[in-house]
């Protein structure tokens, strides 16, 4: 266990650049405006998003009868967990696929679970930021509508801490399994596929919400019309139901049982991640280290292209080739051209069915 804490400390120091900040801002007293600006940006960004969420949650909860408040809370729980899943995938891909430290760590006498758990904790730390912006304002709004009391507040705090663990564990199992299958050397391709899937997911969600808000129905009616859908979503992912009821029914035996279920499920999810990780981690890592020796000789056709060109032409050709061979650059360049028009067209597509 001591090795785990040592590794966690080093991973946290390295991942969050704590030593760099300490040296730059405290010891050398250079660029001290940076943390200040960063703080202002965080407060402004998180404050405005959190404020918007709070206003939306308050108006939604205020317009609903108390029996639907629980359902609305569950929607936010689900949204937070989906967000944790997305961010978790990104964090874990970065921590496992793009970190250079595995070649340092693997030759050390560390068990696989020690490395996995340290990286998982670092990912979990980053996971508490989105719920802070998305879930905390909802809890405040919920508390205004239906006061939580002491047990409710304690339960909400526990739920807040537990909420990202299951999505993060799922993201971890997915990342390590993909790493085993795809290998770290194909990480560019993986990023492109993951980005395309994420964008498809975002577009699908946007389509869903667009279709939800179109028409003359008020929010309460929309929710009543979607009760089955939300309930089905809840039954598809029971932890969201447990998290919701742990808060909404705090102080009752039902609330306590739901909190207990959530604690057990979260612990089990982390356990499954570590178990699966133990089995596939080295395989995935080792697969990524391997390089084949396939070589291709220059053929006559390729050789014929080796003719003198003006320096500018050579420079442009080099840039174009590099651009086309870096999938992530192509993705960054082209997707904006595709997504922006699609997003603009969504209201027309989504509204067609409901306006009837």
């Amino acid at each position, binding site marked *: 266990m*001591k*090795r785990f804490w*040592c*590794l966690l*400390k*080093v991973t946290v*120091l*390295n*991942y969050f*650049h704590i*030593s*760099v900040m300490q*040296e730059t801002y405290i010891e050398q007293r250079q660029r001290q405006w940076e943390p200040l600006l960063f703080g202002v940006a965080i407060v402004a960004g998180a404050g405005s998003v959190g404020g918007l969420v709070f206003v939306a949650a308050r108006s939604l909860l205020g317009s609903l009868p108390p029996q639907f408040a629980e359902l609305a809370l569950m929607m936010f729980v689900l949204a937070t967990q989906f967000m944790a899943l997305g961010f978790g995938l990104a964090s874990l891909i970065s921590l496992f696929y793009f970190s*250079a*430290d595995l*070649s*340092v760590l*693997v*030759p*050390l*006498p*560390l*068990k696989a679970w020690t490395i996995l758990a340290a990286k998982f904790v670092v990912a979990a730390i980053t996971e508490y930021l989105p719920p802070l912006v998305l879930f905390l304002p909802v809890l405040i709004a919920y508390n205004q509508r239906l006061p939580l009391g002491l047990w409710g507040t304690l339960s909400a705090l526990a739920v807040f801490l537990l909420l990202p663990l299951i999505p993060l564990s799922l993201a971890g199992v997915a990342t390590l399994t993909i790493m085993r299958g795809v290998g770290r050397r194909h990480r560019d391709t993986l990023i492109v596929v993951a980005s395309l899937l994420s964008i498809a997911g975002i577009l699908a969600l946007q389509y869903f919400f667009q279709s939800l808000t179109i028409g003359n129905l008020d929010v309460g009616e929309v929710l009543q019309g979607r009760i089955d859908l939300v309930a089905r979503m809840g039954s598809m992912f029971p932890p969201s139901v447990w998290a919701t009821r742990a808060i909404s029914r705090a102080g009752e035996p039902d609330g306590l049982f739901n909190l207990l279920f959530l604690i057990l499920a979260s612990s089990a999810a982390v356990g499954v991640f570590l178990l699966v990780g133990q089995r596939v981690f*080295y395989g995935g*890592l*080792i697969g990524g*280290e*391997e*390089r*084949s*020796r*396939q070589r291709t000789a220059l053929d006559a056709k390729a050789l014929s292209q080796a003719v003198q060109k003006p320096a500018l032409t050579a420079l442009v050709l080099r840039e174009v080739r590099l651009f086309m061979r870096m999938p992530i650059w192509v993705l960054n360049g082209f997707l904006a051209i595709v997504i922006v028009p699609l997003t603009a067209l969504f209201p027309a597509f989504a509204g067609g069915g409901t306006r009837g």
Partner: protein
Amino acid sequence: MLSIRNVSKSYVKDGVNVVDNLNLEVAPGEIFGFLGPNGAGKTTTIKMTVGLLKQDKGSITVNGHDTRQNPLAAKSSIGYVPDNPDLYDKLRAFEYINFVADVYGIETSVRQQRLLRLARMFEIHDALSDLIGSFSHGMKQKLALTAALMHAPPLLILDEPMVGLDPRSAHLFKELMNEHCSQGKTVFFSTHILDVAERLCHRVGILRRGRLITCGTMEELRQAATAESSLESIFLGLTEK
């Protein structure tokens, strides 16, 4: 100390073996030089020994511990310096050394003593509070070697340790290898610098296309070739066949 038996490795299923039925024994107190042209399989062999790669066939034993059956015990006996150390750029040098010392469970008094001695020897003592990201390649090599020696490993494995080092640092590395060996410990290193291998190693092994084509002391190698041969001419003679 290091025993490699019938080890084969291919990166492509049913493809050409990068390491082909390799057999090698390195004794305690020995400096063993692992030579071969680019792509001969030296780094692959080293990576299999330290656990970064998995062999397809055969077994590797370090200090009596099979690297597959008992990896933690085997790794505890190894100090490893890769050819291009990817250390934590955002950490300070002493934070990294402390971490490695913690992993090996080295007592505070011992670690302080060793750290000071090694850091002074490698002339990095005045940079221990600096961020690793600010280090040159040579300084990173020295830091990686300092970290690898913190637990006084019975087997020190170095992959191309002289690449990118200035003459003084290279000299320090050689002194260090001799010192390590004089304590009854083993040094196993790959290199392209034949002069270093010739003067430093008790035995050398030459690898070509994954196969060990010759292995022995300089005297044995010379006897196999012509009496006046240098290691360079033996190497070129064997690897160009």
